[in-house]
């Protein structure tokens, strides 16, 4: 039992070192001290081991990333809604998404996109290059540049490793990281806990607000670099703000910053960095590709 606690302490401290927040380091080190029974000497030993552990831990091995992301994708389809039945719609969204990925640091990675058959307005991403958007979100859009803006926001979460960073700040994630380090890739209970944690972050707790704002501005840049009108996300969020009547979903709830804050951030990004950059809106194609599918 004591050895188990010591191992947890190492993992917790390692997770703290793998992240960059000094306050998190302090908090998790304290947790590590508690896990070793409050003995300072052992806590120091834990810290030394954790430093070595953290050095070999980051970046997250892609096998682990795909296992966690695959689990979150499974849980998403199980609890949030099924894949929308229109193959045409799925192919269309996938092409827009892949075009954007080609302009990011993860160009060439095998991203997968899905339209989830539910009516609220939401989109989310999981490690391992999984991106989801609800049919309700697409219904609230008017052109392809708005779709590109939302997908680019989610892609930015993946390229910046936001979900992984959030998970690294937690004790439960530290445990599975240690399992992988020890060659225990088949530790399904640990994976289950990590998937549950990721699902909770996405649908209940939310990412850090700064991460959401970063994904907005980076997403706008990705969309513009692809050739889309950089104002697509701005128009979409402005419309959501005007229409907001309570039936929102993740993009309109406490898991994201207030819409007016996000809109102001995007406005500043465009005004500061993207003046003179326009791009395609592809309204007619968007209508042609989505109207029939979403009328079902």
């Amino acid at each position, binding site marked *: 039992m004591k050895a188990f606690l010591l191992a947890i302490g190492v993992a917790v401290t390692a997770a703290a070192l793998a992240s960059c927040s000094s306050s998190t380091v302090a908090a998790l080190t304290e947790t590590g001290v508690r896990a070793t029974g409050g003995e300072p000497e052992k806590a120091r030993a834990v810290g030394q081991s954790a430093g070595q552990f953290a050095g070999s831990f*980051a*970046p*997250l091995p*892609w*096998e682990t*990333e795909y*296992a966690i*992301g*695959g*689990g979150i*994708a*499974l*849980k998403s*389809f*199980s609890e949030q809604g*099924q*894949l929308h039945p229109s193959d045409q719609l*799925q*192919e269309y969204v*996938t*092409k827009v998404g*892949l075009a954007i990925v*080609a*302009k990011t*640091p*993860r*160009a*060439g990675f*095998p991203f*997968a*996109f*899905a339209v989830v058959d539910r009516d609220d307005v939401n989109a989310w991403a999981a490690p391992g290059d999984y991106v989801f958007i609800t049919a309700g979100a697409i219904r609230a859009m008017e052109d*392809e540049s708005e779709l590109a803006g939302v997908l680019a926001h989610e892609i930015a979460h*993946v*390229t*910046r*490793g936001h979900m*992984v*960073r959030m998970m*690294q700040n937690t004790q439960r994630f530290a445990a599975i990281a240690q399992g992988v380090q020890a060659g225990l890739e*088949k530790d399904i209970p640990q*994976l*289950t806990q990590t998937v549950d944690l990721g699902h909770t972050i996405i649908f209940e707790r939310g990412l850090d607000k700064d991460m959401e704002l970063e994904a907005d501005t980076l997403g706008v840049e990705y969309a*513009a*670099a*692809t*050739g889309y009108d950089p104002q697509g996300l*701005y128009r979409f969020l402005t419309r959501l703000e005007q229409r907001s009547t309570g039936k929102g979903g993740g993009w309109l709830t406490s898991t994201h910053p207030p819409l007016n804050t996000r809109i102001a951030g995007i406005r500043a990004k*465009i*005004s*500061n*960095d*993207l*003046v*003179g950059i326009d791009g*395609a*809106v*592809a*309204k007619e*194609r968007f209508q042609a590709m989505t109207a029939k599918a979403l009328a079902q």
Partner: protein
Amino acid sequence: MKSRSMGMGVALMAAILLLGTQGAPAQRAVDRPTQRTQPAAQPPRAPAAAPAAGQRGAASLGTAYAKRAGVEVKRTTERTSPNVATLKSGEAVTVLLKDGARLKVRTAGGAEGFVAALNIASTPPAQTGSRSGIIIADNMSPGERQNVSSVRGLSPMAKEYALAAQLPEKATRDVEKMEANGKSVSASALSTFLKEGQVVAP
């Protein structure tokens, strides 16, 4: 010489940072109508005081770097103009002048043309994602890229999780179909899709 270099560096940073501030007010950039589906056909503008094409040693604003892979250096300021070069992520170019939202640059190979300022930074992109906990494609060897690409498909560990958690089989089929959709789009199909939508990188 040192002060001259510093002056050029300052000028380059100012050029990149202030690119958007000339012409339309910032407010107008957001509020203007956006129904355009393709760039308006305009003749390429001849930049004032442009160095002679290919003339090495011409006055420059300093060195800048491609922010992403595949940045296209175009012959003119029009986004539909032919490419004269394609930059790798982090590849250095010499900035010769700014023209609206675009920069005229010279590549290490001597090609001169225009790039969108949003694709260029005054410092090289980060070389590693080691502290972000995420894999960055630019830092991977071809072999590593191949491994990552071939791993696509629902992770065996995730499948075991689905069984252990007693998730409905439909969820597994949905993830597998989602992944198959991503793999089914070829590079040529994506290129055609972008052309049909008149989506052209700046």
